[in-house]
């Protein structure tokens, strides 16, 4: 797959909010060509992208999907059902969304999802290769605590998904963004990465993050 080749540095981001623009900046620092879309026409986010992610391209969601093999979904989660179900066919789709009742309102399906919200996202976009990742740190961490490979004290980010080649590609992306990458296992293991989970919102190194996820998997 071209999307996971070692030389491919193209990234698509759906969502031009705090998270989308911050990841865009981090990715551009890592040498990626980044295309971003927001809700509505590209003109609506042109100024945002120009100021907050200069160098990225503001385009339509369709153009984002066409621009790269890896697409990051960085919307408020209550908006994800507004996207066409086949939009991401064949693409690696990084679900960076979290469900917050205070932001998203009461959504029974997401609030009670026994295997985690990313499984719901995968069901919706059944032709996409969904990987849950980039959701368990604060958005600002993407620029404040990025470190080159091998630096002592580097923070880790986990990725969970059923398509192992897709997970491998996302692990590589995480490393390039400036974090140690931890394979969390199957998509339903993403439950441990959610708010309320054992690793959410706290910065961990790779060893510690792996141990916490292992402990969670063993107790489940």
């Amino acid at each position, binding site marked *: 797959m071209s999307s996971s080749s070692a030389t491919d540095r193209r990234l698509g981001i759906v969502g031009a909010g705090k998270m989308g*623009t911050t990841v865009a*900046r981090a990715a551009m620092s890592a040498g990626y060509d980044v295309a971003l879309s927001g809700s509505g026409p590209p003109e609506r986010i042109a100024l945002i992208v120009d100021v*907050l992610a200069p160098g990225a391209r503001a385009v339509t969601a369709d153009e984002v999907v066409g621009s790269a093999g890896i697409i990051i979904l960085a919307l408020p989660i209550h908006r994800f059902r507004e996207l066409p179900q086949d939009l991401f066919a064949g693409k690696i789709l990084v679900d960076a969304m979290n469900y*917050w009742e205070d*932001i998203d*309102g009461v959504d029974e399906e997401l609030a009670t999802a026994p295997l985690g919200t990313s499984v719901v996202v995968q069901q919706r976009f059944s032709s996409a290769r969904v990987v849950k990742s980039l959701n368990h740190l604060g958005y600002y961490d993407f620029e404040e605590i990025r470190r080159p490979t091998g630096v002592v004290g580097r923070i880790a980010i986990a990725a969970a998904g059923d398509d192992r080649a897709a997970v491998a590609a996302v692990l590589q992306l995480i490393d390039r963004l400036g974090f140690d990458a931890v394979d969390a296992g199957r998509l339903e293991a993403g439950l441990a990465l959610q708010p309320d989970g054992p690793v959410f919102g706290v910065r961990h190194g790779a060893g510690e993050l792996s141990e916490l996820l292992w402990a969670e998997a063993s107790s489940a």
Partner: protein
Amino acid sequence: MTPESKGRDVNPEDIEFGLDTFVYASVDESGRAVDGDIVIRNTVEEAVLADSVGIDSFNIAEHYRPEMMDSAGHVMLAAIAGRTERIRLGTAVTVLSTQDPVRVYTNFATLDAVSNGRAQLIVGRGSLTESFPLFGFDLADYEELFEEKLDLLTRLLRDQPVTWSGTFRPPLTNQYLSPPLPEGHLPTWVGVGGSPQSVIRAARYGLPLMLAVIGGPARRFAPLVDLYKRALDAYGHAPLPIGMHSHGFVARTDDEAVAIQWPYWADIFEGAAAERGWARPTMERFQAEIADGSLYLGSPETVATKIAAVIRQLGLSRFDWAYATGRVPHEQRMATIELYGREVVPRVRELLAEPPAEPASSSAPATTDVGAASVQQ
């Protein structure tokens, strides 16, 4: 020295120093819960004190929760108006999405009249959202609700009579509302928590911007300040004021401020951890928020130095300080207001009148600094 390296231009005398309160149900000094009606009267006393020590504005939040008594701030503000002469009286924030803008207008135009022109508003979402189910709104409609209600409110403020129609309330036809507002009264700010689209919206409506920085360093908001300025320009508006809201506590010494505020702060975040899935509070995180985050806490000198730095860094013309987080007793709230008005605010103005420190020796990073290490591979 380039303009970027010394921070943004500010005039110390023009800066508005406000106090914000959530009217927390407090405890007394022996730790017993104080009845809600007493908490409300205590808050009026706190505002009267704020006026007497020279603070520029007193602003009340809006919640519908057992631990906060701020469900009808405008009534409290009217009581405060009757006992003060000078201090401006406002909200922080009015949850406009779940209010009727017609009622917001009539309440606050009346407050403006009884206070002789001292009313002001910040409209926004707030970080807690219990008002949506309470008043029968769907949080998923947040964007549409806020947009529509801000549209109607600005029309009511700017060009009565108003003919207007929308989705969430009945239309208005050639509607005048009483009392009329004198030109320029009831300044209305838009409160934002970091969403770029919210910043753009404030600029589109030509309204001043209030940044709520309730976690982490304020420099994260520097790009949004740039975005706001660019957007104002793009929409053809003149530059408008930018303010910021953060929490804190001041006592005689740094140690005393930490000792008083920590248990109440921890209490709030224990609740948030249980309710919202956040990480549990630790002393380490508390100290990090004080050292390089959103808490303006410590001795008068410590707090003044930090406030002066952020005002310079972001080019603020208003700083609202949410004094005493959580169930801090009334007596300690009064003491912190007294220190803030008599020592911190004059000291901030003094610091801002001095030439800025060289960046190399300053703790305030340049606004374009996004972290020490970038990844180079």
